[in-house]
């Protein structure tokens, strides 16, 4: 595919499969959730608001799990994060101006609840855009057969 575009006169750069890396740390201290949302390549636009919303949903997932068995907390929180992440990615594509995010600075959320983790947990995920972003328009071409062999 690289060759096809280079032959057409374009400059081609291989970029990662994902646009951003989201990493966060949940602290057992009251209301502690700190995260970063980092673009992986120059064409991945800075999405501070998206990162903050995802982190807020992680914090909410933790809130919703209050009262559940201690041993199930971690797995359930991770499932909640996945669900909320995919939802938020789509929501952000449609409503980029969406506001209402709490936090005093990017990536920092206060939940007001005490997490009952035994230890501080650190996790990192790759986030790939599922909507029309990072660019406004998109289209797809589907086919069969091996797409990887070079064709000139």
């Amino acid at each position, binding site marked *: 595919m690289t060759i096809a575009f280079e032959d057409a006169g374009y400059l081609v750069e291989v970029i990662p499969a994902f646009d951003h890396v989201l990493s966060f740390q949940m602290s057992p201290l009251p209301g502690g959730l700190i995260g970063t949302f980092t673009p992986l390549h120059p064409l991945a636009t800075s999405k501070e608001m998206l990162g903050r919303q995802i982190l807020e949903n992680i914090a909410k997932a933790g809130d919703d799990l209050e009262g559940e068995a201690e041993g199930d907390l971690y797995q359930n929180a991770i499932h909640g994060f996945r669900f909320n992440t995919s939802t938020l990615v789509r929501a952000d594509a449609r409503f980029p101006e969406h506001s209402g995010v709490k936090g005093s600075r990017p990536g920092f959320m206060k939940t007001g609840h005490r997490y009952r983790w035994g230890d501080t947990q650190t996790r990192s995920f790759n986030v790939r855009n599922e909507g029309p972003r990072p660019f406004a328009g*998109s289209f797809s071409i589907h086919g069969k057969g091996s797409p990887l062999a070079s064709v000139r």
Partner: protein
Amino acid sequence: MKTASSAADTAPVERLAIFEMSDVQKIPVGIVALVKTADSEWSLQCSSEENSLQEKLRTVAAAYAAARQKPRFERCYTRA
């Protein structure tokens, strides 16, 4: 619910940023991602900022896709 494993399954096999060169400046045209959707099925996902840029991508992507969908013996014949 989307899980990490299904996200990995649909991760692009190849993902390219396409630029045009204007003097010494790189102008972004868009992103092209090749995604394997099944054993022998694939999808070229292209995105760009404007319709005109999309058409530029579509021209090359469509030709590439058409070449990929030719039966193997026909490709060999054409190359010879």
